[in-house]
């Protein structure tokens, strides 16, 4: 298993292999994203029970929590890709990081927006400068900074290194987001899901949420692969294999 993983890792490091292998993965990600998201959405928005205090407005959790989880884990993945680029000089890591940045920014925006919409009926305000909301806003600006930095620097290798460094430095913000609700008094409630305790909601509520989270991850895989494959073709446009694949189509 370990050997298989290391071979896969080295193969994915080559642009040509990356393009071929991920081409086979694409339909699986696409199908699982579509199935999981449609099941999760209908289950969560229609069939899951409503909350005893918040009523139906609680259902926005089925968009808010998955987007917030993705916003943070995409950033961690980008930081890991940054380490791989800086230490092992694997250029494909940079392609993946570049493909992830706009999706991460979109997820962070979605978490902030759904949180604001949720805040109006429950808290009575759509924004409060509490530690959780503010650190999440900082994450959004980090994503925007990563996108801007990439556009601002030339040549590509310099931009890649700078973005990798910024991604690694910014990873400090992730534990701050995660533990903000435990370290300080905030308006935002503590986490409903932790690895150590059973969820603070019944299975009829958390099962559709789990399906939504998996669906969001499948959607992430699908969209990142689509973007990364296009970027590989663009970066390798002068090589023979790209010309061959494009001619075949």
């Amino acid at each position: 298993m370990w050997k298989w993983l290391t071979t896969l890792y080295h193969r994915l490091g080559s642009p040509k292999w990356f393009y071929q292998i991920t081409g086979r993965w694409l339909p699986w990600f696409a199908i699982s994203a579509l199935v999981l998201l449609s099941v999760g959405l209908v289950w969560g928005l229609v069939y899951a029970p409503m909350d005893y205090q918040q009523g139906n407005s609680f259902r926005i959790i089925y968009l808010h929590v998955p987007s917030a989880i993705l916003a943070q884990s995409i950033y961690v993945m980008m930081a890991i890709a940054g380490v791989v680029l800086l230490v092992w000089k694997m250029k494909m890591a940079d392609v993946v990081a570049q493909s992830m940045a706009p999706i991460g920014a979109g997820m962070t925006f979605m978490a902030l927006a759904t949180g604001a919409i949720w805040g109006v009926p429950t808290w009575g305000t759509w924004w409060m400068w509490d530690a959780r909301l503010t650190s999440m806003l900082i994450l959004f600006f980090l994503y925007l900074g990563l996108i801007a930095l990439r556009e601002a620097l030339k040549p590509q290798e310099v931009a890649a290194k700078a973005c990798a460094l910024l991604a690694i430095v910014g990873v400090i913000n992730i534990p701050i987001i995660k533990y903000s609700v435990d370290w300080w008094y905030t308006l935002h409630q503590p986490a409903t899901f932790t690895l150590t305790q059973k969820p603070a909601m019944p299975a009829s509520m958390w099962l559709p949420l789990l399906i939504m989270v998996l669906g969001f991850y499948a959607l992430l895989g699908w969209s990142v692969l689509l973007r990364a494959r296009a970027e590989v073709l663009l970066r390798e446009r002068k090589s023979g294999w790209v010309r061959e694949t494009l001619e075949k189509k």
Partner: protein
Amino acid sequence: MTPKRKKKLALIGLMLSALAIAVGLTLYALSANINLFFAPTQIVQGEAPLDREIRAGGMVVDGSVQRDSDSLNVRFAVTDYNAEIWINYDKILPDLFREGQGVVVVGRLNETGEIVASQVLARHDENYMPPEVAAALEAAGQMPDHSPFRNQAPQNQY
């Protein structure tokens, strides 16, 4: 791993830990400002400034809500299970406001030690449940605790 890569990896690790310490110390130094609200105990002990806009948070004391019959004026007490503080408010309360529920109020502390609020926000907890489950738990006296002051709170008070 080649020595050069090892060195680079160590350098990144060193940079991250130095940064984490710096950020950690800054956040620790600023923690009084990062806390969104003062707990009633802090206000009673005089940590909150008089006549300046502050935020206070706590649980609405059961049976403390007094509504004026001919205006929106409302008075209620907020507690962290250690000290209590009275709040005066004259606007519309959020839907989730009720006795035993967490709130954050924005307002000014006056000389009598009461807060004149300009805004009341409801704070909800991380426990979600269907109405039937909530009714069953309530009947059995097993309702989970809603307070941000969990460590001081007597278990299952509400």
